[in-house]
């Protein structure tokens, strides 16, 4: 009995010793491995895509530029690109935040007062089914070539997904939690404050996930139609394309793309901070 006991203890000691010695290294390795398997496939895809691009570009010099041409253009005219990117970013930030805010606030009003939904929703739908590409020139005529029409177009594009998603989120409360609140005679405000507001966040973030990339689309489209005044990456694209300047065209497109990636990454960061409590099962990410 004592022998088995001591041997068991010895084994335990041995494993804990080896564990102590090797486990940090092993776990670090494991983590690295995990990271590798999660990153590698995407990286490989990008490398292959870049290679294919490069091959195509070399074979067809008048269709697409090579990657190094684009890169050279970015370096050479960095100041111009930077200035234009700032303009587009401003449009996206101002337009998107007002569209988001307006969508969320209107969703709150509609969620709290059914009659407001019945009154306003049809109009919203009519506006939303009108192609934004068609509205944009009209807005430019109305508001001139300044920033205003660009803010409006961007806000409009963002507004609808925010409204619809927020409304769904504010409505989708846990019925049983709502029952508990009602037996406490909670006021509407208290139900909103304690239940609906935070409870709607998974939907709000699902809405943002759709809305933010759209904001860039909105800003670019608004710039396309108001290209007379050269400002923003969108107008850079149209002007360069009209001159068949491939490197500038594609450099601008690449920067628009970069903006989208940055926005989505920021969103993912914020989402993690705000929605740590949500398992994400209820709403698709």
């Amino acid at each position, binding site marked *: 009995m004592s022998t088995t006991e001591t041997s068991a203890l010895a084994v335990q000691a041995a494993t804990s010793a080896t564990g102590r010695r090797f486990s940090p290294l092993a776990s670090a390795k494991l983590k690295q491995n995990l990271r590798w398997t999660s990153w590698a496939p995407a990286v490989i895809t990008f490398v292959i895509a870049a290679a294919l691009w490069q091959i195509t570009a070399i074979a067809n010099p008048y269709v697409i530029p090579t990657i190094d041409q684009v890169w050279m253009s970015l370096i050479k005219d960095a100041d111009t690109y930077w200035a234009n990117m700032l303009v587009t970013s401003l449009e996206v930030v101002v337009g998107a935040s007002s569209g988001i805010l307006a969508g969320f606030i209107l969703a709150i009003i509609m969620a709290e007062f059914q009659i407001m939904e019945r009154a306003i929703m049809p109009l919203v739908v009519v506006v939303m089914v009108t192609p934004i590409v068609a509205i944009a020139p009209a807005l430019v005529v109305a508001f001139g070539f300044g920033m205003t029409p660009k803010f409006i177009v961007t806000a409009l594009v963002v507004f609808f997904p925010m409204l619809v998603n927020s409304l769904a989120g504010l409505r989708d409360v846990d019925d049983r*939690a709502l029952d508990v609140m009602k037996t406490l005679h909670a006021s509407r405000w208290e139900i909103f404050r304690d239940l609906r507001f935070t409870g709607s966040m998974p939907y709000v973030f699902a809405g943002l996930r759709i809305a933010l990339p759209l904001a860039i689309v909105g800003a670019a489209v608004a710039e396309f139609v108001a290209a007379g005044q050269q400002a923003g990456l969108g107008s850079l694209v149209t002007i360069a394309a009209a001159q068949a300047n491939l490197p500038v065209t594609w450099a601008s497109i690449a920067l628009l793309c970069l903006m989208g990636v940055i926005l989505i990454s920021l969103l993912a960061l914020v989402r993690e901070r705000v929605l740590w*409590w949500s398992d994400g099962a209820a709403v698709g990410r």
Partner: protein
Amino acid sequence: METAQPHAGVYIEDVSKSFGPEGARTLVLNHVSLSIKMGEFVSVIGPSGCGKSTLLKTVAGLIEADSGTVKVDGMTVKAATKNKMIGLVPQSPALLPWRTVLDNVRLPMTVNPKANANRNLRDPREILESFGLGAALDKYPGQLSGGMQQRVAIARAFVFDPSVLLMDEPFSALDEMNRDAQRLGLLDFWQSNRKAVMFVTHSVPEAIMLSDRIVVMGAHPGHIAEIIDVPLPRPRTIDVYATDEFRDLEGRVRETLREVMGQKSA
């Protein structure tokens, strides 16, 4: 004459309720009368769909009866909810996942604070500790087991000192061993905090273990088929299960349930 004097606890008289659109209404509660005295523990048992939850929701003020009277401590249900006299434990814990356990239990204090005056509000910490959740105060619901979550939900219903507790199958999602522990915990706590309790359940042993009386409901339409007294002495412990009285009662309740179910199929 009973209506004339204020009735502590729950008083249900001749309540009927039907659902559905005009012309295609189905009667769910048919002239139901029941009173639960202050400090009395009453279970409601019956086949699925017989209207147990509907009855409970009528008392909770979540559903309005078509006819009949419901009073809580002699007040209308509306007045009773205004005064926060009703504690509700729903079938799922329904905790707010973004709030800590402690903040979940504080919720009833922060809601409708006007009704907090002149009452014996409990210390949320203390009540959670007495529920064996002292180590979980700052945890989030997602970090707790199902049984612990349900105990938090019960603490949330007790904390603001309501006079009536309504529980709709609070333990139905738990495994049998866990359920037993939860039942005993609830009994223990209730023993020193005698409220009028209406407890909906599907489990015969649970009903017997907890209750002073068992209301057996039948369906189509929902009605009270029989009310069975449970004269087992209190405080009850797990040993009750092994007594002859318990087995006799279990036989009686099951027999009544069989009769009720038979009616349904006949």
